[in-house]
């Protein structure tokens, strides 16, 4: 199967969004481009943007490889994508509100009750909580793949704590440094204002009764976390405090942070700490990363937590397969962006099919993320498939399977010139009293020829993503 190349598709010739870039590229000296690649690496080393990879012997900090060929999306394509994304995040928030209140969708039988009831991401402590503006998931990274000119699919909804936005920003920054003349020639929508939009968005969901500018802070698990760089970067860019659990306590009915002038109230907390660690008085008592009592302050309406606890119930991979039903239930319309057909291994017929077609499918853990614990059938050895098959038989409800999609490709610059590699796209969505989507997002690229795994933990790289102002 030949993948759809977004620059130079097999039969159609150079695609329009790439025309201007191609014109510029043709006039570049290959040696200069290779040099620029090295410059890019130096820029990243200097800014200190690294990524800790779990599960390796040495707890290694790696640079995520960056490719200097941009991924380019036309204004029209982007408009269609944003409509689909907006519809999707509206449905996600409506679903969360429903699940933590009347559960109409379960009563209607559109989503099976057991899927919620037996799910660790469902937090009873959220029952009856309606956050400001009714927003539960404020920051979402929707992973989108493309397989043809007009075929886009949502791969997953990252509705709890999506990461990667710092790469989007750094990638653009780097491109602007390396190729200022390119941005003179081609009108590309800016992404640099993301931190300001994030700040505005968080401010708009401040607790009711907070007048004036709310105090915002970013809660990080600390410097050992793989995304610590991003936490520090976003706090810095927004001009707000970066805090850890030990800096915070409950005071005067609020969560407050220690400052040189005593404790200062926090109105909106952008937390990058997982639910289970957020409040040792409520969840895991052994957590030292969270804030004891923050759930009490939250239920009392005195702080906004973004994203809300318990949003994981909306992006669970088992729930994902019901997203078309969920979107239709809450918006009354068919999904604009499709789902990838998904076999739920909890269903005996599906399990049988998956077991018989392991060589063709991608099998994922229901609660997993980051490309860990998954099987890419076509790329796996017979032994790997056999071992996975045993795991699947032991805990079928822990897995879902999807067809191996031929993801679109974009060229990357290799030593031998341009070569196509598979990509996906994670646009970042901000939800408050309105929905804001920065034009672009994070394009992840599988650097190995033919590989479909774009996760940075599995050797993927990134590209700058351009949305044309055309």
């Amino acid at each position: 199967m030949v993948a759809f190349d977004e620059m130079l598709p097999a039969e159609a010739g150079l695609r329009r969004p790439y025309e201007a870039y191609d014109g510029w590229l043709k006039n570049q000296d290959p040696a200069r481009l290779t040099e620029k690649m090295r410059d890019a690496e130096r820029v990243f080393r200097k800014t200190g943007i690294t990524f800790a990879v779990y599960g390796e012997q040495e707890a290694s900090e790696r640079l995520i490889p960056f490719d200097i060929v941009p991924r380019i999306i036309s204004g029209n394509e982007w408009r269609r994508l944003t409509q689909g994304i907006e519809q999707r995040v509206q449905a996600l928030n409506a679903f969360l509100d429903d699940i933590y209140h009347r559960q109409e969708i379960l009563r209607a039988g559109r989503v099976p009750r057991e899927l919620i009831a037996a799910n660790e991401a469902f937090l009873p402590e959220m029952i009856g909580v309606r956050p400001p503006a009714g927003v539960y998931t404020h920051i979402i990274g929707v992973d989108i793949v493309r397989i043809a000119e007009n075929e886009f699919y949502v791969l997953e909804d990252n509705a709890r704590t999506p990461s990667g936005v710092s790469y989007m920003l750094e990638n653009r920054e780097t491109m602007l440094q390396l190729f200022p003349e390119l941005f003179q020639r081609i009108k590309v929508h800016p992404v640099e204002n993301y931190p300001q939009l994030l700040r505005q968005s968080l401010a708009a969901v401040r607790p009711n009764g907070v007048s004036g500018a709310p105090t915002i802070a970013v809660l990080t698990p600390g410097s050992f976390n793989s995304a610590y760089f991003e936490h520090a970067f976003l706090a810095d860019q927004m001009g707000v405090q970066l805090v850890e659990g030990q800096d915070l306590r409950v005071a005067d009915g609020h969560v407050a942070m220690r400052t040189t002038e005593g404790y200062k109230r926090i109105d909106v907390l952008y937390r990058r700490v997982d639910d289970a660690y957020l409040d040792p008085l409520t969840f895991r008592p052994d957590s030292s990363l969270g804030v004891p009592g923050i759930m009490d302050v939250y239920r009392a309406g005195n702080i906004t937590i973004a994203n809300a606890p318990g949003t994981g119930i909306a992006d669970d991979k088992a729930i994902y397969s019901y997203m078309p039903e969920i979107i239709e239930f809450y918006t009354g319309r068919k999904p604009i962006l499709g789902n990838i057909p998904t076999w739920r291994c909890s269903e005996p017929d599906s399990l049988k099919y998956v077991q018989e077609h392991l060589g063709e499918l991608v099998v994922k853990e229901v609660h997993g993320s980051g490309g860990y614990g998954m099987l890419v059938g076509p790329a796996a050895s017979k032994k790997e498939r056999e071992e996975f098959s045993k795991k699947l038989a032991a805990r079928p409800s822990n897995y879902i399977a999807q067809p191996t999609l031929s993801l679109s490709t974009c060229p990357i610059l290799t030593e031998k010139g341009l070569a196509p590699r598979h990509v996906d796209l994670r646009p970042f969505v901000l939800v408050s009293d309105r929905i804001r989507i920065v034009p672009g997002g994070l394009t992840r690229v599988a650097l190995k020829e033919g590989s479909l795994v774009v996760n940075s933990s599995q050797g993927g790289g990134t590209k700058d993503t351009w949305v044309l102002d055309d």
Partner: protein
Amino acid sequence: MRLKVSHRTEYSYDEPIRYGLQRLRLWPASGPAQTMLTWALHIEGAREEVRFLDQFGNDTRLLSIDGEPHTISVVAEGEVETNDTAGVSGPHRGFAPLWLFEHQTPLTAPGTAIRELAASVGNGRDLDRLHGLMALIQQRIAYVTGTTDSRTTAEEALVKGTGVCQDHSHAFAASARLLGFPARYVSGYLMMNDTVEQVASHAWAEAYVSDLGWVGFDAANGMSPDERYVRVAVGRDYREAMPIAGILIGQAQERLAVHITVEQ
């Protein structure tokens, strides 16, 4: 029946406390079996930070340490008008769905002993089966204080054969859930006959029976709650309905004293 309740909890420490939190579920609400006449909380050594209704509708308050005290005391007291509803506390209310109460928690997770116990409950009408279950638990877990603690599971207490009302309630909830009934844990007070001083706050369990709603079963005493009972908080287990839960920063040694009186 008009009951007068006083519940004093005092924590003493061997060094001053600088930071800590206490979460109280000590504010009873009026309902089918009780009407609150007066109720008050008196707190020393700590102050109220926030109050809210938790996921089960319990009036919950979060306290933080005030100053650097050596003792913290919490007195909950007031008067309640109770009536005998034969243990029926009425229809299910609130956003917490009934199915949530069909699920076991770490404290009620059944093992072989609970499974066997539940399996030995005979067939018949729902109420008869639940009364049968209550009688079985009363037989199998002798009321002995000091043999279990707040972390003891239903299974452990049943295997041990001794425990207190908390263990009876967990064993009942665990078994009732196995039998297909939504079940919950209730914390509150009981006026024991002929005595004003009560050894402890009380707990019992409720099972949801179609047509009747929630029905209480006090397996420690082998009876359904009557007008001598005051209900304070509910949850799926002790941990979710606990009257006081705290977290303390530091190394201080804690001593706990509880004094409860319930009288007419």
